[in-house]
């Protein structure tokens, strides 16, 4: 399986995952140090989901995300400097510093935003897919969400609506085992979120979310089908949130050390690195990629540190905009 991915492409996937990892480890520290304000939810350990999925997309495709959205944003091609500025609350952030971590976005690459309300991204992605259908653009939408979101009515309404009206949207559940402190089996009665597909007459798939090559393979197939048929699909990626729910949560008082250890051993970056070695790539080439990621993130930090804050008065602008229709 996925034996046909070239070493070059694997190194590219590694770079993307390392970029997200380094970015999030860095902002985690900067947040603790008080340089980045607000709440942070990192996707450390889940990078293969974001990267494997976005790698299967075309540039014009749309993505929506959750409160845990840095990885999706970066994987979709968001500018690292601008994204870092957004986290710093600087004017040069994509949102002008108005959104921060829970609202990172880059409309330039059709990343339509993280969202702080569980389940809200699904409908927005559906609407973007409806646009694509109207425009006959051939674009599809991806809505990332957590397994916790599947306990909310928005999940059900949107899957049913998408199937009922027929639009090309790919619902991607990153099942990381926990919704804040709640283990998935406490809040869901089915073993797999993908099992819900039967209720909506759409295909459902499960993939190892810590194996970027497996994610890429499944997503390539499913995204292609969504594009070809103009109809929705549901994919569940089984993964794990290595950190706490957010910066202030160790994540250790409701999860066993053994469980965490076991998942660390399945770390997606580690796994791809091992795979690269097996495929004959030199350790140095891998290290060079990791160093590249570090350099990029450092550059973004330097840029954001030096960037100006927004003018306080600009807080009153952009509530309304565009043409007033008059």
């Amino acid at each position, binding site marked *: 399986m996925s034996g046909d991915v070239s070493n070059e492409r694997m190194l590219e996937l590694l770079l993307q995952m390392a970029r997200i990892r380094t970015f999030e480890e860095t902002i985690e520290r900067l947040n603790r140090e008080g340089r980045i304000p607000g709440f942070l939810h990192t996707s450390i350990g889940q990078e293969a989901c974001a990267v494997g999925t976005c790698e299967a997309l075309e540039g014009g495709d*749309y993505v929506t995300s959750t409160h845990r959205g840095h990885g999706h944003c970066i994987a979709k091609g968001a500018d690292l400097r601008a994204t870092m500025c957004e986290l710093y609350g600087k004017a040069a952030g994509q949102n002008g510093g108005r959104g921060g971590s829970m609202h990172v976005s880059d409309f330039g690459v059709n990343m339509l935003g993280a969202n702080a309300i569980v389940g809200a991204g699904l409908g927005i992605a559906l609407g973007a897919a409806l646009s694509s259908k109207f425009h006959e653009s051939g674009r599809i939408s991806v809505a990332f969400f957590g397994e916790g979101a599947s306990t909310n009515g928005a999940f059900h309404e*949107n899957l049913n609506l998408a199937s009922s009206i027929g639009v090309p949207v790919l619902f991607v559940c990153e099942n990381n085992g926990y919704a804040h402190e709640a283990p998935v089996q406490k809040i869901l009665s089915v073993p797999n979120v993908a099992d819900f597909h039967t209720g909506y007459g759409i295909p459902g798939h499960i993939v190892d979310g810590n194996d970027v090559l497996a994610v890429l393979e499944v997503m390539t197939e499913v995204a292609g089908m969504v594009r070809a048929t103009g109809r929705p699909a549901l994919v569940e990626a089984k993964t794990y949130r290595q950190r706490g729910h957010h910066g202030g949560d160790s994540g250790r008082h409701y999860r066993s050390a053994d469980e965490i250890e076991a998942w660390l051993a399945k770390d997606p970056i580690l796994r791809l690195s091992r795979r690269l070695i097996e495929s004959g790539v030199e350790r140095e080439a891998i290290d060079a990629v990791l160093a590249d990621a570090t350099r990029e993130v450092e550059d973004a930090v330097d840029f954001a540190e030096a960037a100006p804050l927004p003018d306080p008065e600009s807080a009153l602008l952009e509530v309304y905009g565009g043409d007033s229709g008059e």
Partner: protein
Amino acid sequence: MIPVSREITFGEATLEAVREEMRRDDRVFAIGEDSGVRGGSFPIFRGIAEEFGDARLIGTPICEGATTNTALGAAMTGMRPIVGLHFADFMLRAMDEIGDQVARARYTFGGQCDVPMVIRAYDGVVNSAATQHSGAYEAIFAHFPGLKVVMPSTPADAKGLLKTAIRDDNPVIFLEHKRLLRTRGPVPDGEHLTPFGHAAVRRAGADVSIVGYGIMMSQALAAAERLAGDGIDAEVIDLRTLVPLDEDTVLASVARTGRLVVTHESWRRSGFGAEVAAVVAEKGFADLRAPVMRVAGEDVPVPFSPVLEQRVIPNAEGIVDAAKSACGHG
């Protein structure tokens, strides 16, 4: 003022607006519950599918929340949806979507996108529809920055304001009172747009300003007639849009009359009348010569029984009493 060409109903006027804008701009489309979207007792998009095909009238299941966020996603990516949520009561099932998503997308994303969409619903009290089909929530929508809120009172405004709403690049909440739907009035032929933020002085007067919107306009005008009989010359102002609010027209009126009665059918407590009262109590205080009176719905869930229902909604008599009381103080 308006060239009187023909009389049509309020409901027909809104359908004209939708049809004209859909012909003009193929990014405009309609979306709403499949059940009743085409016909039914409140035909919010009657005739649209016939002219434009099913592709431009998306019928949905019973999922107001998903429908609203879907419209948002479409609006963020170049379309111009008109959402029909039928009874305004059902908007409570999409309050997160309307208040937390639609209203804020443009600002939170730093102006990276426009959000050109209209959400239409029928509100207010009619024929013992009882509490869960009598809701009117304009005060709530006016609280959320990012939304515009429109409440027409005549067929001409219904058409002109709805066309303006559809062309606006911001989300517009467009609320149509059920008891207005079959009222008739003159509507100009040809292109007819009514700008936002411009109140209409429906009757000029010197003694007291009666400010309201929507269904209460007919009551306000009836009250003004009766007040005239008692020698009180009332000015009647129709706000037409609550957001943006035409403070200038209201303040200028109060500057002349010195007295203010605000009226709406929805609940008094924390209603939009309080906002109007507060604006005038601040910016027009020097002109005020009497207590600001509110004539609004009683603070109870609207009851079913006609005798009870009539007891809790405001009417011309209440406006007359309030205006007299204000003038007594003057």
